[in-house]
């Protein structure tokens, strides 16, 4: 049992120390095996943040949600020309470049501008689309705002990590710039007058205005380089063979004007069908998937977290001997460290950091991260529960000739479990709620699904209300069930 604790801790340590060497080595090692690697596995994984119509967004096609838009069409073209299958992976815009660097995705197409800063960390193809910026405002304010300079003393919003965000900061004075992760959140903030304008690319602005009668678009008049308003495909640094191959496709797209002629009109059609039915009932499947994943993550994490917690608690209570003292020290350090760092950071670390060593799917990473986190808390509950069992119980068991292990297993733990059951129940209910954190790495749990529905329907509040009710149903049901078992344990 104790060996496993060491194993886990050792794994964590190698991870931390292994990181620095790996990040540098992978950057060089990939040179030009990039193309053959993709062709060998037969798939090209594209990362994108699907809340940016018409570049990329979710649409319901034949009852199934899928990611569509002009960027997906570009991705399909590249994949087809390489003779491989395109796989689209969605995640937040902030996470895209990290996902590329850590090999979670092969390329990023997400309306991304090939800026000088980004070029330092990734390789870009030629640009496949030249756009411009607009600012989306409420239609009623059309008389007040003309361009970027009209927002003195006001707030404009832009997607965090995007070029618009940086340029809005640089090129306005006296204007507050507010960053949010998703454009649908920004539009919601605009409609509830938290902000007065949203800076975004022209095609996106047009799509939003076309789908929402209360919005209007004004020119931004930002001073921009061509590279700041163009979109290109990003690949991992050093994969020049892959970039070279993709450039052939991109050049064809350019010369045949495929974006304006084919891709944008196709995306526009999805946008129209999308806005036909914005009732929440229409999206019950999306919400159901969310509930399903939230439950999978919670149940698995509670299970593994409990096992880890028991091992950690026993390690923390070990007495005497160099080995046991070392183990106790390690377990204490682990618990303190995990409790002293945010779960969000832990989730990202497991997905991106551990991803350098083994390629774990987002769901698995999420479950691992939350189990590791929960284990630290459960360990403390269990330690408290064990300590609350009267010392006389141990003495009685030992006086009967039982070993310390048998005493723990047959006498102390069963009684401790009864004491800690309410705390474990609370942990379970907390995890139902906290599992929402894994939405940042793209696991389709409730929060993630609600974001999809929001960007799909352009309705900001309704999906939030729906998941609020769903979360409550989950936690309330869970607490009833736990209470039932708690009462059953009180027989003695």
């Amino acid at each position, binding site marked *: 049992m104790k060996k496993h604790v060491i194993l886990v801790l050792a794994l964590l340590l190698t991870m931390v120390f292994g990181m620095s060497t790996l990040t540098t080595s992978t950057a060089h090692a990939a040179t030009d095996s990039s193309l053959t690697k993709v062709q060998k596995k037969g798939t090209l994984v594209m990362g994108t943040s699907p809340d940016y119509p018409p570049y990329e967004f979710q649409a319901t096609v034949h009852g199934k949600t899928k990611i569509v838009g002009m960027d997906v069409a570009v991705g399909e073209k590249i994949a087809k020309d390489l003779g491989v299958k395109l796989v689209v992976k969605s995640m937040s815009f902030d996470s895209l470049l990290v996902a590329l660097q850590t090999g979670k995705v092969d390329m990023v197409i997400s309306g991304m501008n090939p800026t000088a800063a980004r070029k330092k960390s990734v390789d870009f193809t030629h640009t496949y689309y030249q756009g411009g910026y607009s600012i989306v405002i409420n239609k009623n304010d059309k008389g007040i705002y003309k361009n970027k300079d009209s927002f003195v003393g006001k707030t404009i919003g832009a997607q965090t990590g995007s070029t618009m965000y940086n340029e809005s900061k640089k090129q306005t004075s006296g204007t507050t710039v507010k960053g949010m992760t998703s454009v649908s959140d920004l539009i919601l903030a605009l409609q509830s007058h938290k902000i007065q304008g949203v800076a975004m690319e022209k095609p996106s602005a047009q799509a939003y205005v076309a789908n929402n009668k209360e919005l209007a678009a004004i020119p931004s008049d930002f001073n921009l380089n061509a590279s700041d308003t163009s979109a290109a495909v990003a690949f991992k640094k050093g994969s020049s063979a892959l970039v070279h191959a993709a450039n052939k496709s991109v050049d064809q797209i350019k010369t045949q004007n495929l974006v304006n002629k084919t891709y944008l009109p196709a995306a526009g059609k999805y946008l129209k069908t999308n806005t036909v039915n914005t009732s929440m009932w229409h999206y019950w499947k999306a919400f159901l998937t969310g509930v399903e994943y939230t439950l999978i993550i919670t149940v698995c994490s509670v299970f593994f977290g409990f096992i880890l917690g028991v091992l950690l608690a026993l390690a923390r209570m070990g007495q005497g001997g160099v080995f046991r003292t070392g183990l106790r020290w390690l377990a204490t350090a682990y618990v303190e460290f995990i409790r002293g760092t945010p779960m969000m950071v832990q989730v990202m670390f497991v997905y991106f950091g551990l991803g350098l060593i083994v390629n774990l799917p987002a769901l698995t990473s999420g479950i691992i991260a939350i189990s590791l986190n929960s284990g630290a808390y459960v360990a403390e509950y269990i330690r408290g529960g064990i300590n609350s069992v009267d010392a006389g119980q141990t*003495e*009685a068991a030992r*006086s*009967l*000739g039982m*070993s310390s292990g048998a005493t723990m297993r047959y006498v102390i733990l069963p*009684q401790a479990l009864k004491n800690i059951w309410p705390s474990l129940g609370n942990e379970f209910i907390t995890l139902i709620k906290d599992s929402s954190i894994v939405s940042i790495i793209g696991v389709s749990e409730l929060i993630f699904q609600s974001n999809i529905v929001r960007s799909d329907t352009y309705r900001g509040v309704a999906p939030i209300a729906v998941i609020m009710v769903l979360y409550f149903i989950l936690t309330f049901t869970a607490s009833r069930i736990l209470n039932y078992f708690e009462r059953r344990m009180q*027989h*003695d």
Partner: protein
Amino acid sequence: MTKPIIEVKNLAKNFGKNTVLKDITEDVMPGQVIVVIGPSGSGKSTFLRCLNLLETPTSGEVAFTGENLTTLDAKRVNELREQMGMVFQGFNLFPNMSVLENIKLAPMKVKGVDDKTATQRAHELLQQVNLDDHADAFPNSLSGGQAQRVAIARALAMDPKVMLFDEPTSALDPEMVGEVLNVMQDLANQGMTMVVVTHEMGFAKSVADQVWFMADGYIQETNTPDEFFSHPQTERAQDFLSKILI
């Protein structure tokens, strides 16, 4: 000549700076009933708990059937502890198990006795302490006297060679003391070797082979009960006896 079953040599025990046992050397012979009496805080319970190593002696030796417990590994100590049943002031029954399960646990988990044999033996022991009709009850539903009799049965289930009693009647209501002492007296009559820490002077008088009087970390006087209660040798014992009602 028979060998002593328990040999204590120069036993001392400190808790931090507090010295509880100073220097104790005594033997217990097979079949003997020893009653340890003395004022509160004189180290009686600590002495008893050193005999089965629930407390680790600071210095000195405790040998059981010729083996020095203080030098043995944990496994051997566990094996020898099986042969030394212990009964506590606070009963220490396992509250999450029925009376029967309390008695069966150690024989099954430590000795590997099968369920049927363990159950049968548990019922025999419960009959011996007059509680067979409570086999399926849980400890919290028992009176103190009943709980202590179950605790005795539980200790006997391991077929010990010695029984250690740590103030077995101190936590009981007065009307329940008798039923526990009767069980202990029966045990003594059957020839069980017993070391009993108690304040029950009547029990000491009628059942003990020897009374050990303990005070200030030493065993001050060992004597037959008749001699001890009628002609205590030491001033410390005379003083103690003058303060209690007999």
